[in-house]
Every structure is written in structure tokens, then in C-alpha cells.
């Protein structure tokens, strides 16, 4: 059977080799092995998390561990929900995440628009100063940032235990501005000039021309903004110390010492569910955002 083999799409092992009987056996056994190992390694712990939250305290710390809950107790989840005040933690995290998203969209989009299309005097210098912050490791600045949040210069207000302590630093995201500016750069100037001649102002041009054309990049920026707040740990722990203001991460950590193992696992499972659903729903956008540009080296 003569098959025209297109060499441009081949990978390490050629199709011809894979189609031989021995190649097929090797291919399928490696595939099945990988599937089993990956499912065990990456889904297995999640299975243990969800089912661990269905066990009784005695069963959760039983040796050897049980592979499935012998006595299903959904009550563990409701205990976790009330005992760790998860409703409050979840609401807080949602408020922080969506507030940060909104502020980032408003301020970072308008900044990127200014850099890309309005091009003010010293614009490149300011952009450079923003991009330079990407070189500074986040953990190094956490102490001076904390002291700034406690006592904001000039205004002398304390942002601790207010959402602003999470919202405002999230806007200082040079990566967002970089991504957005680069996308805006690719929008033809002629389009904006035409609108300008028709009498549209800068805000109108941004709203009616630039934004509708930039949906793909805005969705990437939005997803990363939400995920970043959801995953952040140390900054929310420091910035929102009051138990009623904490995020899921910080709240579960703070209470982790005093609750039984099964309740703690149930709380973790509850905190993980929104991100898992979010990921499954937006996985295409997330992975496209992650590997955008196909990295031609």
C-alpha cells in the first residue's frame, strides 16, 4: 500500500514506523501506559480529595487508607462549609478576583491604548519603566509593598483589610500592558484616523473600534487576571489579615491547624471546584494564551 507521506508534519517517530505491526504494539502500549500513569498521578490525588471529603474523621485517618469512602458522609462537606466559613471566604475571593479584573481592564487597557495610539511625550520611557518591573522578582518587593499598603504615602490611609490592598497592586501588571499594547499596535492607524476625521474622540475610538477588535487578547488577559487572584497566597495572607476578609487560600491555611483531616480535605475540594470548572470551560483559551505565538525559536 503506497501512502504519500507528508514529511512536514512528521515528528520524532515516522508514521511508516508506527504503522508496522511492531510499531503499533509499541505505540499502543506506550499510549495506554501514559494514560494510566497520567490519570493516576494527576487525577488520582483529585479523586482522593473529593472522596476524602466524603469520609468520616475516623476513616480519613485510618491506616491503611481506604480507596473509597466505606461510609459516605456528605455531612463532612457541610461541616467544612460552616466551620471554615467557606461562604465568606468564597465571596471574598470572588470580590477580590472580579474587582481586580475590572480595574486591570480599565486601567491597563487605557494605558496600553495611550502607549500604542496616543504616543505621548516620554511614553516609551514610562513604558520601559513599567516593563522593567517584570525583572524584579515578586517576593523581593513584598515587604516594602506591605509597608506601603499599611500607610499609603501622601494619603496616609491604611489599605489593609480593604479590597483595595488586592485590587490596586494587581493593576501594576506590566505583562498585561505589554500584551495589550502589542495587540493594539497591530490595529491599522488608518482606521483610527478615519474615525478621528469623522469627529470621534479618543474615548470613543477606544470603545467603538479598538475594544471590539481586541476581544481575543482581552479574554487572555481576563483569564490570567482571575486565575492570578485565585492562586495568590502570601500577598492576600498579609494584606487581608482579618478572618472575615481572607481569601480561600489564606483562610483555609489559617484554620488548617484546628480542624480534622477530613474536614480540611473537604474544604480544599470546595476551594478547588470553581477553578476546575473554570479551567474545563475555558481550557481552549487558557492553553492558547499560554502557548500563543507557537514559540518559533
Amino acid at each position, binding site marked *: 500500500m503506497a501512502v504519500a507521506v507528508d514529511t512536514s508534519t512528521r515528528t520524532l517517530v515516522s508514521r511508516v514506523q508506527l504503522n508496522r505491526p511492531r510499531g503499533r504494539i509499541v505505540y499502543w502500549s506506550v499510549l495506554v501506559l501514559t494514560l494510566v500513569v497520567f490519570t493516576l498521578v494527576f487525577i488520582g490525588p483529585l479523586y482522593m480529595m473529593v472522596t476524602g471529603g466524603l469520609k468520616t474523621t475516623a476513616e*480519613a485517618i485510618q491506616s491503611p487508607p481506604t480507596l473509597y469512602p466505606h461510609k459516605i458522609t456528605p455531612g463532612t462537606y457541610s461541616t467544612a462549609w460552616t466551620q471554615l466559613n467557606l461562604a465568606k471566604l468564597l465571596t471574598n475571593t470572588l470580590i477580590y478576583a472580579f474587582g481586580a479584573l475590572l480595574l486591570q481592564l480599565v486601567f491597563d487597557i487605557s494605558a496600553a491604548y495611550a502607549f500604542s495610539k496616543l504616543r505621548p511625550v516620554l511614553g516609551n520611557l514610562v513604558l520601559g519603566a513599567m516593563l522593567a518591573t517584570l525583572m524584579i522578582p515578586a517576593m523581593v518587593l513584598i*515587604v516594602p509593598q506591605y509597608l506601603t499598603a499599611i500607610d499609603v504615602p501622601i494619603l496616609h490611609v491604611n489599605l489593609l483589610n480593604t479590597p483595595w490592598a488586592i485590587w490596586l*497592586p494587581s493593576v501594576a501588571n506590566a505583562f498585561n500592558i505589554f500584551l495589550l499594547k502589542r495587540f493594539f499596535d497591530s490595529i491599522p492607524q488608518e482606521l483610527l484616523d478615519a474615525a478621528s476625521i469623522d469627529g470621534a474622540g479618543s474615548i470613543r475610538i477606544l470603545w467603538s473600534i479598538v475594544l471590539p477588535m481586541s476581544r481575543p487578547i482581552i479574554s487572555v488577559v481576563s483569564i490570567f487576571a482571575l486565575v492570578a487572584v485565585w492562586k495568590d497566597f502570601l500577598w492576600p495572607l498579609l494584606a487581608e489579615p482579618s478572618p472575615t476578609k481572607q481569601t480561600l487560600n489564606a483562610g483555609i491555611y489559617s484554620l488548617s491547624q484546628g480542624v480534622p483531616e477530613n474536614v480540611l480535605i473537604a474544604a*480544599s475540594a470546595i476551594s478547588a471546584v470553581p477553578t476546575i470548572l473554570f479551567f474545563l470551560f475555558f481550557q481552549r483559551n487558557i492553553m492558547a494564551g499560554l*502557548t500563543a505565538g507557537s514559540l518559533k525559536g
Partner: protein
Amino acid sequence: MAAIEVLVSTTEPGPTPRRTPRRQGDFVRELRRNVSAYGFLIGALLCFGLFSWYPMVREFIMSFQKQKLGRTQWVGMHNFNQIWNDPSFGQAWRNTLYFTLLALLLGYVVPFFVAIVLNEFRHARAYLRVVVYLPVMLPPVASLVLFQYFYNPEYGLFDHILHAVGLPTLQWLQSPNTSMIAVVIASTWMNMGGATLIYLAALQGIPGELYEAAEIDGAGILRRIWHVTIPQTRLILSMLLMLQIVATMQVFVEPFVLTNGGQGVDNSTTTIVYLVYQYAFNFSNYGAASALGLLLLLVLIVFALIYRWVSRRAEQ
């Protein structure tokens, strides 16, 4: 993750800058354009000023200062002397470097070979990608609480598995010999998805003709990896190496949550960032915290500069 995103974007060639034609002499028009532009910038400028630029300057200044009885004094190199003489200093650097080394071995090398294997599959590709990236999306405390549960020497899953296959069980987080290894395993599980997907994207850009030519020349699979795959992904490999070094040397969350506070048994999981945290938030010694942060910054900036140099070359 942020670091990885940076890598992705900087490797794309930027568009050529567009110059708007300026009308000579139209001063008012220029002024209005600039005022409106800075109006658009003001929100970002304030946030960067307060939470990036000002803290950078302050970090530097504070490392030469000390707070005494509510008054700030310049103390020269005192803070640096203090952290240098802290017995935890050497231990923290050793732990951090040990973590970095192990994390690279697992989190840098393994994803590359995982990506090579995944790239050969014609089935279940979407499933495998989703599965490997799923832990990256989880809230870190959820993953770490779970791993802490698995590491328990009395009722943990891991010792049960070791016992079941006839291997000696370990004390994991409760022994200074294995605690850092336990931290690395959890950290790799949580983070390897990002690197894997980036490698996978890089592998898809390798022209098939190169493998074909190598095979015709009689190269086996390992030689093809050595002579085609690695040279073709060299830039991505070197950039990810820099980024991962910078990211792993800032390790904090994993030991902090796994060992309920960060030190571990006999300081075996104390890292540099944990030491910074301890100076600042347990002892309110902001001077020492800043000095140590500055030292870490100097070490990391070397890697960041190498990264920039490499990514510049990638853009050309």
C-alpha cells in the same frame, strides 16, 4: 506562571512602531494630545508608582536603615552584617539551592521528555494536556493540604503505596533528610503542566524534514532527540531554564504550607524568602528583611539579565 507568560510573549516579534505624522507648529493640538494620553495613563501610573516603583526604591533604602523606638536611623551595612551572622543564613541558601536543583531536575527535565512522548501520540492528546495542566489551575493551598495528608507517616497514602510495593516507608516531611524532597515532589506536581505545554508548542514547530533527513542518515530515536529536537528547541530550553531558576529560588508557599510555617524539622525547609518573611513579619525587623531581599534580588537579576539576553537573541 506569570514568568512563563512573559516568555511566550517576548519570543514573538513585535510589530514595527508606527509614527503618527506630526503637524508642525500645532502646539495646542500636541498639548491636548499629551494631556489626554496622560489622562489615559493616570490609573496605571499611580498603581505602578505606589506598588512597584516606590517599593523598589524603598527596599533599597530600608536595607541601610533601622527602626528604633519609632525612629528611623541610617545604619550603613549593619543589616547585612546581621543577616550574614544569622546561623539560618547559610542553611537557607543551602536549602534554597538544593530545592532549585531538585526542582530543575524534576520540573525542567521531566516535562521535556513528557512533551516529547505526548507529541508522538495521535490519540487522547486533548485529554493528556488537560490532565497535566489541571494542577496548575488549583488553588495552591488545596493541593498542599492534600499532599500534606498524603505525606503523613501514619495514615498517608504515599507510605501505604511504598509499603504495598515492598519498599521502606519514609518520614517525608517529618525527617530533615526527606522533607525538601517531599516539598519538591508537591511543587513539581503543582507546576509541571506549564513547562510541558510550552515544550509541546515548541516541539510542534520543528520541521518534519529534519527528522526525516536524520532518519535517512541512520540516526536512532535517541540520536534524533540529541541532534534534532534539542538543537531546534535550544532557545526555549535556555529561556525556560532561566525562568525556572528565578521562580524556584523564590520558593515560599510550598514549604510554608506543607510544614505549617516554613521551617520544617531542624530548619530543613527554611528558604531565603521564608527568612525574609520571618524577619519582617515575625520579628518586625524590616531592615534585615530588606537587606536579605536585596541580596536575593542581586542573585536573581543575574539570571534575569541572562534571560533577557537570550530572549533578545530569540527575537532576532
